Protein backbone atom coordinates (compact mmCIF):
# COMPACT_ATOMS: atom_id res chain seq x y z
CA UNK A 1 0.00 0.00 0.00
CA UNK A 2 1.41 3.41 -0.93
CA UNK A 3 2.20 5.81 1.93
CA UNK A 4 -0.39 8.50 2.28
CA UNK A 5 0.97 11.23 4.57
CA UNK A 6 -0.42 14.61 5.39
CA UNK A 7 0.22 17.10 8.21
CA UNK A 8 -1.41 20.29 9.37
CA UNK A 9 -0.33 22.79 12.00
CA UNK A 10 -1.84 26.04 13.22
CA UNK A 11 -0.86 28.36 16.06
CA UNK A 12 -2.40 31.69 17.03
CA UNK A 13 -3.50 33.96 19.86
CA UNK A 14 -7.27 33.92 20.18
CA UNK A 15 -10.03 35.14 22.45
CA UNK A 16 -11.95 32.62 24.53
CA UNK A 17 -15.03 32.66 22.27
CA UNK A 18 -12.95 31.68 19.24
CA UNK A 19 -11.28 28.84 21.14
CA UNK A 20 -14.73 27.59 22.20
CA UNK A 21 -15.78 27.71 18.52
CA UNK A 22 -12.71 25.70 17.46
CA UNK A 23 -13.25 23.04 20.11
CA UNK A 24 -16.97 22.90 19.32
CA UNK A 25 -16.09 22.26 15.66
CA UNK A 26 -13.70 19.45 16.64
CA UNK A 27 -16.37 17.98 18.95
CA UNK A 28 -18.96 18.05 16.15
CA UNK A 29 -16.41 16.51 13.81
CA UNK A 30 -15.88 13.59 16.18
CA UNK A 31 -19.62 13.23 16.53
CA UNK A 32 -20.13 13.16 12.73
CA UNK A 33 -17.01 11.14 11.96
CA UNK A 34 -15.52 13.84 9.73
CA UNK A 35 -13.23 16.80 10.56
CA UNK A 36 -11.70 19.32 8.17
CA UNK A 37 -8.98 21.65 9.41
CA UNK A 38 -7.47 24.36 7.27
CA UNK A 39 -5.72 27.70 7.08
CA UNK A 40 -3.81 29.58 4.40
CA UNK A 41 -1.00 27.05 4.72
CA UNK A 42 -3.10 24.07 3.75
CA UNK A 43 -5.83 21.75 4.90
CA UNK A 44 -6.40 18.22 6.10
CA UNK A 45 -9.40 15.97 6.31
CA UNK A 46 -9.70 13.38 9.08
CA UNK A 47 -12.29 10.67 9.64
CA UNK A 48 -12.45 9.63 13.31
CA UNK A 49 -13.55 6.00 13.45
CA UNK A 50 -13.63 3.09 15.86
CA UNK A 51 -11.92 3.43 19.21
CA UNK A 52 -10.20 6.70 20.11
CA UNK A 53 -7.00 6.87 22.12
CA UNK A 54 -7.50 10.09 24.08
CA UNK A 55 -4.99 11.88 26.29
CA UNK A 56 -6.04 14.88 28.37
CA UNK A 57 -3.31 16.81 30.11
CA UNK A 58 -3.91 19.84 32.34
CA UNK A 59 -1.08 21.75 34.01
CA UNK A 60 -0.65 24.82 36.22
CA UNK A 61 3.02 25.63 36.60
CA UNK A 62 4.85 28.86 37.35
CA UNK A 63 1.85 31.03 36.56
CA UNK A 64 1.03 29.33 33.28
CA UNK A 65 -2.00 27.13 32.68
CA UNK A 66 -2.17 24.65 29.84
CA UNK A 67 -4.72 22.18 28.54
CA UNK A 68 -3.79 19.61 25.91
CA UNK A 69 -6.06 17.12 24.17
CA UNK A 70 -4.53 14.42 21.98
CA UNK A 71 -6.77 12.05 20.08
CA UNK A 72 -5.55 9.30 17.76
CA UNK A 73 -7.19 6.37 16.00
CA UNK A 74 -6.75 3.97 13.12
CA UNK A 75 -9.14 4.08 10.23
CA UNK A 76 -8.89 0.39 9.51
CA UNK A 77 -10.33 -0.25 12.99
CA UNK A 78 -13.56 -2.01 13.51
CA UNK A 79 -15.63 -1.21 16.60
CA UNK A 80 -13.51 -3.69 18.59
CA UNK A 81 -10.47 -1.55 18.04
CA UNK A 82 -8.23 -3.68 15.87
CA UNK A 83 -7.32 -3.39 12.24
CA UNK A 84 -7.66 -7.04 11.24
CA UNK A 85 -11.41 -7.46 11.26
CA UNK A 86 -13.48 -9.31 13.82
CA UNK A 87 -11.76 -12.18 15.65
CA UNK A 88 -13.69 -15.42 15.48
CA UNK A 89 -12.92 -18.25 17.94
CA UNK A 90 -14.77 -21.55 17.68
CA UNK A 91 -14.24 -24.86 19.49
CA UNK A 92 -12.77 -27.59 17.33
CA UNK A 93 -15.14 -30.58 17.44
CA UNK A 94 -12.52 -33.05 16.14
Amino acid at each position, binding site marked *: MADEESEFE*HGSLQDKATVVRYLNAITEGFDNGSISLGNRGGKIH*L*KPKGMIDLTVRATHKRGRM*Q*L*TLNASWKNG*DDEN*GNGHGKLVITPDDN
Partner: protein
Amino acid sequence: MATATEAAADARSAKRHTKNKSKSKAKKTAAPLAEKSKNIEKKSASDAKAKAEKSRIKFEGVMSRDEAVAYFEAIVVGLKKGAIKFRQGDDALSLAPGAYVEVSVKAARKNAAQRVSFDVSWIADDVDSLQITTE
Protein backbone atom coordinates in the same frame (compact mmCIF):
# COMPACT_ATOMS: atom_id res chain seq x y z
CA MET B 1 -12.67 11.68 34.92
CA ALA B 2 -15.79 13.63 35.81
CA THR B 3 -17.28 16.32 33.60
CA ALA B 4 -16.61 19.96 34.45
CA THR B 5 -20.11 20.42 35.86
CA GLU B 6 -20.05 17.18 37.86
CA ALA B 7 -16.66 18.09 39.22
CA ALA B 8 -17.88 21.53 40.28
CA ALA B 9 -20.86 19.95 42.08
CA ASP B 10 -18.54 17.48 43.84
CA ALA B 11 -16.36 20.32 45.04
CA ARG B 12 -19.37 22.18 46.45
CA SER B 13 -20.60 19.08 48.26
CA ALA B 14 -17.13 18.41 49.72
CA LYS B 15 -17.01 21.99 51.03
CA ARG B 16 -20.43 21.59 52.69
CA HIS B 17 -19.36 18.30 54.24
CA THR B 18 -16.23 19.81 55.81
CA LYS B 19 -18.26 22.74 57.19
CA ASN B 20 -20.89 20.48 58.79
CA LYS B 21 -18.26 18.19 60.28
CA SER B 22 -16.48 21.08 61.94
CA LYS B 23 -19.74 22.41 63.48
CA SER B 24 -20.80 19.09 65.02
CA LYS B 25 -17.35 18.44 66.53
CA ALA B 26 -17.28 21.83 68.26
CA LYS B 27 -20.65 21.17 69.91
CA LYS B 28 -19.64 17.84 71.41
CA THR B 29 -16.40 18.92 73.11
CA ALA B 30 -15.51 21.30 75.99
CA ALA B 31 -14.36 24.82 75.09
CA PRO B 32 -10.51 24.54 75.24
CA LEU B 33 -10.57 21.11 73.70
CA ALA B 34 -12.94 22.32 71.02
CA GLU B 35 -10.55 25.14 70.14
CA LYS B 36 -7.66 22.68 69.92
CA SER B 37 -9.71 20.28 67.83
CA LYS B 38 -10.74 23.13 65.49
CA ASN B 39 -7.09 24.05 64.94
CA ILE B 40 -6.13 20.47 64.17
CA GLU B 41 -9.06 20.18 61.82
CA LYS B 42 -8.14 23.44 60.08
CA LYS B 43 -4.56 22.25 59.64
CA SER B 44 -5.55 18.85 58.30
CA ALA B 45 -8.11 20.42 55.96
CA SER B 46 -5.48 22.74 54.47
CA ASP B 47 -3.00 19.85 54.26
CA ALA B 48 -5.61 17.77 52.46
CA LYS B 49 -6.37 20.65 50.07
CA ALA B 50 -2.67 21.13 49.29
CA LYS B 51 -2.30 17.40 48.76
CA ALA B 52 -5.41 17.13 46.56
CA GLU B 53 -4.70 20.21 44.41
CA LYS B 54 -2.12 19.04 41.90
CA SER B 55 -0.23 21.11 39.40
CA ARG B 56 -0.60 18.42 36.75
CA ILE B 57 -3.30 15.93 35.79
CA LYS B 58 -2.86 13.44 33.01
CA PHE B 59 -5.49 11.03 31.81
CA GLU B 60 -5.13 8.53 28.98
CA GLY B 61 -7.69 6.04 27.80
CA VAL B 62 -9.06 4.18 24.81
CA MET B 63 -12.73 4.89 24.33
CA SER B 64 -15.60 5.14 21.87
CA ARG B 65 -16.11 8.32 19.85
CA ASP B 66 -19.18 9.13 21.99
CA GLU B 67 -17.08 9.08 25.17
CA ALA B 68 -14.42 11.28 23.59
CA VAL B 69 -17.16 13.70 22.49
CA ALA B 70 -18.48 13.80 26.10
CA TYR B 71 -15.02 14.85 27.36
CA PHE B 72 -14.72 17.53 24.68
CA GLU B 73 -18.20 18.84 25.50
CA ALA B 74 -17.34 19.07 29.23
CA ILE B 75 -14.24 21.08 28.36
CA VAL B 76 -16.26 23.36 26.07
CA VAL B 77 -18.71 24.03 28.93
CA GLY B 78 -15.79 24.76 31.28
CA LEU B 79 -14.14 27.09 28.77
CA LYS B 80 -17.40 29.01 28.34
CA LYS B 81 -17.86 29.28 32.13
CA GLY B 82 -14.26 30.30 32.64
CA ALA B 83 -13.51 27.44 35.05
CA ILE B 84 -12.59 23.84 34.34
CA LYS B 85 -12.09 21.40 37.19
CA PHE B 86 -10.32 18.10 36.56
CA ARG B 87 -10.62 15.26 39.04
CA GLN B 88 -8.74 11.98 38.90
CA GLY B 89 -9.13 9.80 41.96
CA ASP B 90 -8.14 12.01 44.93
CA ASP B 91 -6.33 14.50 42.73
CA ALA B 92 -7.92 17.68 41.44
CA LEU B 93 -6.80 20.62 39.37
CA SER B 94 -8.71 23.78 38.51
CA LEU B 95 -7.98 25.85 35.44
CA ALA B 96 -9.42 29.30 34.83
CA PRO B 97 -8.95 30.24 31.17
CA GLY B 98 -7.95 33.84 30.55
CA ALA B 99 -9.63 36.21 28.10
CA TYR B 100 -6.95 35.47 25.49
CA VAL B 101 -5.29 32.12 24.99
CA GLU B 102 -2.60 30.71 22.76
CA VAL B 103 -3.98 27.95 20.57
CA SER B 104 -2.05 25.25 18.80
CA VAL B 105 -3.85 22.72 16.63
CA LYS B 106 -1.99 19.89 14.94
CA ALA B 107 -3.39 17.12 12.78
CA ALA B 108 -1.70 14.32 10.89
CA ARG B 109 -2.61 11.37 8.75
CA LYS B 110 -0.30 8.52 7.81
CA ASN B 111 -1.87 5.55 6.08
CA ALA B 112 -4.63 4.34 8.41
CA ALA B 113 -3.32 6.23 11.48
CA GLN B 114 -4.81 9.65 12.15
CA ARG B 115 -4.42 12.08 15.03
CA VAL B 116 -5.44 15.52 16.12
CA SER B 117 -4.10 17.57 19.03
CA PHE B 118 -5.59 20.70 20.52
CA ASP B 119 -3.50 22.73 22.94
CA VAL B 120 -4.46 25.94 24.72
CA SER B 121 -2.31 27.85 27.20
CA TRP B 122 -2.49 31.18 28.99
CA ILE B 123 -1.00 33.19 31.83
CA ALA B 124 -2.85 32.61 35.10
CA ASP B 125 -4.66 35.61 36.62
CA ASP B 126 -2.85 35.25 39.94
CA VAL B 127 0.51 36.17 38.40
CA ASP B 128 1.76 39.62 39.51
CA SER B 129 1.55 42.07 36.65
CA LEU B 130 4.51 44.21 35.70
CA GLN B 131 4.24 47.86 36.69
CA ILE B 132 6.26 50.53 34.93
CA THR B 133 5.97 54.12 36.12
CA THR B 134 7.77 57.40 35.47
CA GLU B 135 9.02 59.52 38.34
